[in-house]
């Protein structure tokens, strides 16, 4: 089974049926898999804070939402995470590509990478870091934890987890 299939299977097995995405090269395969599954309503967002708003609405309407985005989005969504998701106590699994880590070819990505965990820590967002493919075995438990505690939870997935950047 591909890692993309495993990740989306875990979402579906945890009742996640509404996923918004903002693309990243590393996330292309998992986004394709989300789009391909009938169990999930896939709604691409133009910006990540818009996506978190969609997820908040979907949750209140009875769905189990998730967002898939790059770590640069943490810089975009601080206010939304704090004043919407956390203030109203809503669950939100965030599958995040952790750009700017080892094997990163684009220097500018590192500038946000060095702030990513510090920001998540400052926001008191439970954060998990997938570095090896076997780390994804925890995804099922992380999703259960997220919907148990009604918090946003970050899952950072770095280049090593995704197998590098190919021929980039």
């Amino acid at each position: 089974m591909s890692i993309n299939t495993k990740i989306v299977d875990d979402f579906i097995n945890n009742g996640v049926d509404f996923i918004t995405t903002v693309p990243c090269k590393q996330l292309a395969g998992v986004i394709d898999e989300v789009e391909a599954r009938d169990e999930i309503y896939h709604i691409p967002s133009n910006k990540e804070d818009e996506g978190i708003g969609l997820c908040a609405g979907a949750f209140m309407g009875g769905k189990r939402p998730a967002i898939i985005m790059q770590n640069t989005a943490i810089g975009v969504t601080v206010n939304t995470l704090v004043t919407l998701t956390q203030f109203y106590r809503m669950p939100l699994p965030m599958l995040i590509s952790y750009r700017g880590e080892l094997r990163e070819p684009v220097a500018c990505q590192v500038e946000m990478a060095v702030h990513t965990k510090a920001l998540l820590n400052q926001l008191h967002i439970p954060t998990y870091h997938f570095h090896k493919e076997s780390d994804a075995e925890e995804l099922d438990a992380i999703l259960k934890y997220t919907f148990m505690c009604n918090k946003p939870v970050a899952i950072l997935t770095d280049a090593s987890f995704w197998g590098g950047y190919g021929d980039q």
Partner: protein
Amino acid sequence: MIRSEILREIAPILRDQLVICNIGLPSQELHMIDDQPTNFYMLGTMGLSSSIGLGVALAQDKTVISIDGDGSVLTNFGTLPTIANNVADNYILLIIDNGSYGSTGDQPTYAGQNTSLSAVAKACGCENVIECQAEDTAKVLQDAIDSKKMTVIVSKCESGNIKVPVITKDPVVIRDRFMAAVQS
């Protein structure tokens, strides 16, 4: 007419619907005029009323009305293509366009100058876009509900505010009673 007068006029229509209400004075005014468990008041997060409302509409079948402002739509312009490409016929976006940032001291917005939000919504692909004068908002809103077609309404009104108390309800209470109303 100013925004609070529109809200007072449409309150009997809103009463039976799920409503996502914009941050600041719009929520405070609606809360004072006719607080209902079917109202979700935004206490923060400027710009996301339309996104939250679309999410609720896509998740279930009841009619959802997002009450937004011109300034808030300008701050989240990406919402309009998302609405246009994810059609929910139980969704109405009501933009009360007073051409100003009302909650922050009535600074002018570009929507009150050269930018037409109804033209932008149409250009983004929204099929049913109606621009109306404040006085006609109640009729246009009721027609949109009855049409069962996703509709964007731009209600042009005058700038101005009334004195209203802030909302002191706990956000989790607002969210919980709204979710119970969705399920009822």
